[in-house]
């Protein structure tokens, strides 16, 4: 009886232990004695080597710190981060994106990094103003700017040669682009322009070119029903719907535009600079190049030039247990040295003023990547707002209905105007 009871208790004990061990693992930081180990969470597996270069450079001078870079796929990154934030187990260092920054900053989740460098003007002196703005809230800086990216026109040189069309240059307008796309489609049967529903790599650029906006300057109202905004969005939608040289949205749902482009199934595509290094690495046989975005020839205001730029920042939790060490690493990440390392690794265009040339140099002989830098001159920051994460999906879904033909553009835009204004008012 005793032996049996003993065995039973042991079994129960081991089962309870298994249950509990499954519950643990929430906290990632540990520090035993002097050694500190930190977690660095990112979402782009292609940039992992670049981030690890940065870690290596830092750890060389700080041997008591070890930092592990973890990549979580973009699709799950934000769900996971939100869960981590709610349970107070945020990673030690993580990438923050325009789309979600406001949500975290206004809820006090991020650590204040304004005084990281002692000099209050360090950020504005060394990084583009738009990036610092997007990493700030209420006059305080909550993220160290990491990089910036712009959107350019990528094109398949093989298809252009086959159709006998000359390559895009800075004289191109959207009319030229449409003509070229049609010619390529007629002569080669391959899609001349890939125009999926996308904001940053799609209609937003044309909205800017037309002189429109999605959010007004003080973020109190949206601009969906603005004439220029409508021109931008309708021009982009028309590329897909009114011409046969672009696949329809149903095709893009099954195979995304990027996959079609690298498979040689599309001659032109709007491409963000963050895709350049991965494409070069994964598709070395693809013959392609990049050019500045075509100009809009009939904007409501402005000269018809525009591109969307965006930038990530590094951030940490306001309640991090190793704030001193983490802040020191963040401080390193915002130095010129760190940005040069990032640029040379080809991961992304480093944010520090003057360091972008290292990224360009890295890739210059393969592609005309200088255009990304050139366009920064007339780039507009990708918009953000506190409630953006709540209505971003609604914008996409409503515009999707226009592509499906179940809603006309005017109705969609006025619906969006009302919905987004409602969210903005609640902020």
């Amino acid at each position: 009886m005793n032996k049996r009871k003993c065995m039973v208790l042991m079994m129960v004990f081991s089962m309870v232990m298994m249950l509990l061990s499954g519950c643990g693992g929430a906290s990632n930081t540990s520090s035993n004695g002097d050694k500190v180990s930190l977690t660095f969470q990112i979402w782009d597996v292609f940039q992992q080597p670049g981030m690890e270069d940065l870690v290596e450079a830092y750890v060389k001078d700080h041997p008591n710190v070890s930092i592990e870079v973890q990549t979580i796929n973009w699709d799950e990154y934000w769900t996971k981060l939100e869960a981590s934030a709610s349970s107070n187990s945020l990673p030690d260092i993580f990438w923050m994106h325009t789309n979600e920054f406001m949500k975290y900053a206004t809820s006090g989740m991020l650590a204040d990094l304004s005084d990281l460098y002692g000099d209050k003007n360090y950020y504005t002196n060394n990084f583009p103003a738009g990036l610092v703005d997007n990493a700030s809230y209420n006059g305080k800086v909550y993220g160290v700017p990491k990089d910036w990216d712009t959107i350019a026109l990528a094109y398949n040189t093989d298809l252009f040669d086959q159709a006998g069309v000359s390559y895009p240059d800075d004289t191109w307008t959207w009319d030229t682009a449409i003509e070229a796309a049609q010619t390529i489609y007629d002569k080669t049967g391959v899609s001349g322009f890939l125009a999926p529903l996308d904001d940053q790599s799609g209609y937003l650029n044309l909205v800017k070119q037309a002189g429109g906006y999605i959010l007004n300057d003080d973020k109190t109202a949206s601009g969906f029903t603005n004439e220029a905004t409508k021109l931008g969005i309708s021009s982009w939608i028309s590329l897909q719907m009114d011409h046969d040289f672009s696949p329809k949205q149903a095709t893009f749902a099954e195979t995304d535009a990027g996959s079609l482009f690298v498979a040689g199934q599309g001659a032109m595509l709007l491409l963000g600079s963050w895709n350049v290094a991965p494409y070069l690495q994964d598709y070395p046989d693809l013959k392609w190049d990049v050019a500045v975005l075509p100009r809009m020839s009939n904007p409501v205001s402005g000269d018809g030039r525009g591109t969307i730029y965006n930038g990530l920042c590094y951030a940490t939790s306001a309640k991090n247990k190793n704030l001193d060490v983490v802040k020191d690493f963040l401080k390193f990440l915002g130095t010129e040295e760190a940005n040069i390392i990032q640029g040379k690794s080809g991961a992304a265009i480093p944010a520090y003023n003057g360091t972008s040339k290292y990224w360009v140099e890295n890739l210059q002989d393969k592609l005309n990547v200088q255009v990304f830098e050139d366009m920064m001159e007339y780039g507009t920051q990708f918009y953000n707002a506190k409630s953006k994460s709540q209505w971003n999906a609604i914008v996409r879904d409503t515009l999707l209905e226009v592509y499906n033909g179940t809603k006309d553009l005017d109705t969609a835009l006025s619906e969006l105007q009302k919905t987004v204004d409602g969210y903005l008012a609640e902020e």
Partner: protein
Amino acid sequence: MSNETTTSSKSTRIRKEYFIAYMMVAPTIIGLIILNIVPFFKTIWMSFSKSALFGAWEFAGLKNYIDMFQSSEFWKATLNTLEFLILTVPIGIALSLILAGLLNAKIRGKTVFRAIYFLPMVVAPAAVAMVWKWMYNTEFGIINTVLRAVGLPTNNWLTNPSTVLLSVAVVAIWSAVGYDAILLLSGLQAIPLSYYDAARVDGAGGFKQFIYITLPLLSPTTFFVLIMRCMASLKVFDLIYMMVEDSNPAIQSARPLLGMFYRQSFEVGNKGYASAIVLWVFFIISIFTLLQFIGQKKWVNYDI
């Protein structure tokens, strides 16, 4: 163990046995309470609240329910879920019945076949969804390629609102038919052969034997499989989520109730509203199960 016991040592023994029994179920019960029961009540409370960022809540009364019942997206999702149920359950059970019968036959290599048909259940749902999605791809998928080669018309299976749920239902049936067949197989093997012998003597052919012996005596197992299939189909999420993404033109014709829950909870961030949706699913499943338990008196035969 001595047979002659005094009253006190007998009750001590009984108490000891009870104690051991409780200890053995304790891990499961604790797990059930912490991971199922408490969250269930929390969900009920959440459905009457409005969620703010990062876990803050404020009471909102019936607003979530009112919004929910007035939302056309919600009713469409309910219809999609019920349509999925109708597509997967009858055909699925019929196919697994036939398969179970075949796997019970006197053929060589029976065990191998049983293992093969069980395999789909072992593969991760995400992997199943990805591969089938590629097979259904309108331009490059193998299904359309084969159809084209034979000269039959093709379809944009996953982006056509009229075929999208059917396409996903095929995958759901494919992945579950083996498992259900194994379950039904165990029920089949419990039927004494003497019944079949008697029927054969009386002159009943294979088909009559099936209708009058197999089906009634298999009904408890069939009942179990029916309930499990119904619940699984009403709770469908991962297959549809992985095969039909948000940018798919047919998404409105495919998104099930739990898909809407996921979207509201994680993409839009409206967790209170999402909780109301979950409770609606719970209600539907309860009604279905209740109806089935009432109906079992009519057709389920427990005396073997």
